[in-house]
């Protein structure tokens, strides 16, 4: 299922892909981009790894991805409610925008990678 060409290309292209994804996320409030876009780029990198090196070792990482996915929601709400402590409305402006960008990026990365892995590993039930 795996091929030498895909593995070599993945090894060469992967550092740049990860760096670009992280750049798009953490510079989301300055340059074009943001959490959703950078998260999708990182999820593309995860799909490339899964395509090149097979799905055999993936179940070890899936629990971590699920934790990131579920924890992202809680972390977003938690960071948003920090502003309540200083008597401002929920999710009000306290210059928390870059932090929210990073949280959304991690969440979208974990979520889209999980959807891809689940759909790619699915097989028809034997009857």
């Amino acid at each position: 299922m795996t091929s030498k060409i895909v593995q070599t290309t993945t090894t060469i292209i992967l550092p740049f892909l990860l760096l670009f994804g992280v750049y798009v996320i953490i510079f989301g409030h300055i340059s074009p981009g943001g959490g959703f876009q950078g998260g999708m780029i990182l999820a593309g990198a995860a799909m490339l790894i899964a395509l090149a090196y097979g799905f055999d070792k993936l179940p070890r990482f899936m629990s971590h991805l699920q934790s990131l996915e579920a924890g992202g929601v809680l972390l977003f709400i938690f960071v948003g409610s920090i502003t309540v402590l200083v008597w401002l409305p929920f999710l009000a402006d306290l210059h928390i925008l870059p932090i929210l960008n990073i949280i959304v990026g991690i969440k979208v990365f974990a979520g889209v990678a999980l959807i891809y892995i689940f759909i790619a590993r699915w097989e028809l039930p034997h009857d």
Partner: protein
Amino acid sequence: MTKMKWFTYLLSAIILMTFGLIFFSTVFLSYPDVLHSEMSLYYLDHLSLTKAVNAVSAILLDFRAYDTLGEILVLFATISGVMLILRRET
């Protein structure tokens, strides 16, 4: 066979473009000043409140952060559904 395929593609493209034009003109004729509305000018004028240069990020995560919260919850629900339906019986 190939002629039929090309005809199908052409028909699909024409139908899609017609639908797009209908929807676009509906919105655009209902609100002629949708491109220069008061709301978008407010966003651009008060961009310095958020300390963000990128206007899209400022709207997504500051002016309309509740929208992003809902979007995140929708993504969470989607993944829960995918994991429920496509799980392996092992």
